């Protein structure tokens, strides 16, 4: 059974079991070599586990790309109270749909990764925070957790190792901001999902005030494979600084949008034209948002020679983020797209910080005015200045994320804005 749209250039490590319902069971996962990594990890010292992950060079797949092994080593070595591991399954970034597939097809892969991570950071409890809208995925995961408890992989004295690790599946209530790690912790604690001021960082004061590590679903799902095959095996894909495979969520104006697992450093143009089958008849590339809606927009020129690794995309003026590639062809009204995104941020701003609470809404209103043909040239300056005032002045980066596409789109697609400002002119080819 082929998972909708696969491609021969894919390297299917994490997504190998996708499309096969059998991988949702303990037996099915074991048949694919599952739970051997857990056994292996429990036989190693915590330090050795962390070392192996460091060797692999695995970087956090949630968007920031921070090296996972180093993040784990921030946890206090000497344990003075409970430690927690949180798995961030609140996948809400517009354009991203990889974690949902990991949850609903290979829940045991994630569970195994969580258990290994918990062992490495001496956590006795793992919280998997699932996005509120993920009804099916959360149910599949919860069922898998139950089954793994019964099979003795979770709970007291795992596999006779003397380790006690519990896993709780936690369903959010549908707020984008709860994907921010400290808001996520507040949400689990039963508070409003508001990001916390850092410092203190979660490794010192996290969930319930205890040392906590938060990892993305894709990050933790990679762990069993790294433990099984070794860190250097993982490095056979990707680049020196961005090793391994990555799930690319492609959406937009291509013939075959979807999830593709590719080695990092994969050329963007090859992804668009080969893997995803290019554009509809007569259409051509206008813009790409390479890493989810929070990152700067790339023009067609930026895409030339761009490689999809953390450094390659930065070189072209954007960020890889969580590798959610939104592709737009020449029929796109960029102003409308940006307005839609800013609307999203205005709706999802938690409302704590003034620049974000007021700024996101203000940007959205100006953009709507421009879109409706009632904008002025001064509005563009105001947009850029407000964006500046919203960048780096808030507790979390939602505000920066709302400002980034506005600034980059004005910079790269100013003609689209000006055309709308000179009202009556249609934007985008007919």
């Amino acid at each position, binding site marked *: 059974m082929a998972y909708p749209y696969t491609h021969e250039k894919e390297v299917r490590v994490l997504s190998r079991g996708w499309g096969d319902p059998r991988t949702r069971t303990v037996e099915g996962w074991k048949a694919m070599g599952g739970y051997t990594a857990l056994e292996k990890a429990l036989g190693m010292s915590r330090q050795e586990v962390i070392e192996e992950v460091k060797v692999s060079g695995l970087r956090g797949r949630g968007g920031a790309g921070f090296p996972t092994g180093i993040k784990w080593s921030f946890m206090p070595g000497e344990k003075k109270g409970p430690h927690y591991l949180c798995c961030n399954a609140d996948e809400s970034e517009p354009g991203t749909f990889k974690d949902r597939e990991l949850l609903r097809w290979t829940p045991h892969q994630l569970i195994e990764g969580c258990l290994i991570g918990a062992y490495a950071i001496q956590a006795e409890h793992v919280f998997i925070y699932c996005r509120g809208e993920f009804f099916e995925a959360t149910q599949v995961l919860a069922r898998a957790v139950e089954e793994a408890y019964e099979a003795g992989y979770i709970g007291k004295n795992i596999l006779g190792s003397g380790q006690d690790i519990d896993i709780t599946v936690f369903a959010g209530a549908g707020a984008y901001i709860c994907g921010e790690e400290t808001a996520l912790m507040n949400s689990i604690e039963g508070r409003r999902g508001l990001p916390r001021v850092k410092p203190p960082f979660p490794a010192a004061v996290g969930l319930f005030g205890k040392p906590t590590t938060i990892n993305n679903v894709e990050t933790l799902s990679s762990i069993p494979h790294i433990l099984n095959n070794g860190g250097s095996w993982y490095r056979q894909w990707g680049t020196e600084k961005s090793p391994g495979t990555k799930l690319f969520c492609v959406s937009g104006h291509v013939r075959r949008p979807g999830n593709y697992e590719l080695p990092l450093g994969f050329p963007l143009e090859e992804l668009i034209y080969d893997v995803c089958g290019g554009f509809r008849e007569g259409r051509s590339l206008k813009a790409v948002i390479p890493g989810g809606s929070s990152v700067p927009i790339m023009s067609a020129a930026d895409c030339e020679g761009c490689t999809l690794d953390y450094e390659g995309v930065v070189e072209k003026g954007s960020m890889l983020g969580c590798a959610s590639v939104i592709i737009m062809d020449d029929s796109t009204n960029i102003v409308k797209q940006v307005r839609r995104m800013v609307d999203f941020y205005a709706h999802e701003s938690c*409302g704590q910080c003034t*620049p974000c*609470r007021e*700024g996101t809404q203000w940007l959205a209103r100006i953009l709507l005015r421009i879109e409706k043909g009632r904008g002025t040239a001064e509005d563009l300056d105001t947009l850029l200045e407000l964006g500046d005032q919203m960048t780096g*002045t808030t507790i979390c980066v939602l505000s920066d994320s709302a400002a980034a596409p506005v600034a980059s789109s004005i910079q790269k697609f100013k003609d689209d804005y000006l055309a709308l400002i000179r009202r009556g002119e249609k934007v985008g080819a007919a």
Partner: protein
Amino acid sequence: MPESTHPQETVTLTIDGREVIVPPGTTILQAAESMGNRIPHYCYHPGLSAPAQCRLCLVEVEGAPKLQPSCVTQVRDGQVVHTTSAKATAMRQGVLEFYLANHPLDCPICDQSGECKLQDYVHAEGRKHGRSREPKRVFGRDDFGGDVLFYGDRCVMCTRCVRFMNEVAQDPRLTVVERGNRSVIDTFFEDGVEGSPYAGNIVDICPVGALVSKDFLHKARAWDLDHTPSVCPNCSQGCNIDLHVRDNRVQRLKPRANPEVNGHWMCDYGRHRYEWINRDDRLRRPLYREGGDTVPGEWGTVLSELLERLEETRPIRAVASPFASTEELATLRRVVDALGGGEILFRSPEADDEIPLPGFPQLARRRDLSPNRRAAELLGMKRVGDAEGRGGLESLADYTGTLIVLGDALADMDEGFGSHAALYLYLGSHPSPAATKADVVLPIPTFAEQEGTFINVEERVQRFWPGLLPPEQARPAWMPLGAILARLGAGELPATAAEAFLAAAELMPELMGLRYETIGTRGAILNEPVLVTAP
């Protein structure tokens, strides 16, 4: 962070080019404040937790990639902070512009106008002209119950009110509902803050006109109010307050910060009991009995009349009020002692229970509802009557000696009170039927109209200042009583309240060594060991 691993006594940092030395753990905002540099802020309040969300107190710290919230960033040795650099100023201007994007410009009808932090900050650093051309968001008005009215459009979402109710009142009645630009403060139930005994404080800490007092609504403009430091007279806690006065009438009471007594807070019970101070039915002239009637007279005449009728050999008894100042009470004691000594009775109202403020345990609305009962007790006066402050004076009905009543309006007594006394002197601020038979009636000011001290429940002596002009002829009781003393050769007539206080100390060893100057605006604990520095 190697330098923070060993404990230090002090931290030295530079703020705007000036060096400042503060204890470790101080925040940049507090350090700046200690040198008189008030960094603008909304969400930070010294009596609450700091969520660092208003983003107005961001400052530039050399070496930090972003501006830092000064309300939560702790000082570090050698830190160099700029609060007025181009970057910090531009940021504040930007944040202020965001505040104004939705804030209504209804200052002309807003109660906060004149004491509004948004007005102040925008006036100081805001843009000349707003750039927003978009329609403003509208929430409208909501009755939060009790004395609190909420104007949602003016809210700057600092959440001080929510945190006060959660952390200090520990009575979570408010919350933020919705998110983003739609965030609004709301109550959980229809009752809102109704019945929450400290809810009035949320009006005080609201930096803008979002939470206003129904009692004060449209009553006075902030710039027309004179502020006088005083002490709340409504229980024995002695919360430090300011009298806010316009046209010689108290318009409202506001807490005055004193970390040792009331923090930044006061209870609604005390806050709303000020109308009696504004009563117009006052004793305005000295009166004396001529034949069967009491007639008004000049102070000189009335006093000589009084001194003439005094007989040192006659037995004397007195009734005092625990609402009178320490100076007045002590002078009364001295007069009674000089006239051969006699019992002084006082009545004082009591509540059924205390109303503590859980987040600030030193503060409670005390059971004892009079401000100066402790002074009366220290002066050997005897409490009689019930918890309503009534009764207990039956033994005085047929009393035939000299009778002095100070301050007690004797509301439960009828016109025959004191009719058997050989000499009946009544000193009061308001007329009373029980003064009808007095031989001499002397008008005195209320606590709000004179200088003096109260001694509170924890034996802290605290000063209050005159905020209102008393009726022209009213004199503090220590003055006529002091004249009696002088006439008897038992002391000098004090010229000022400060002298009356020093004279009181002769009678009250607890006050020894204290002077008005040393008591200051924060008060002083009685019998507290005095720190003596070796020469």
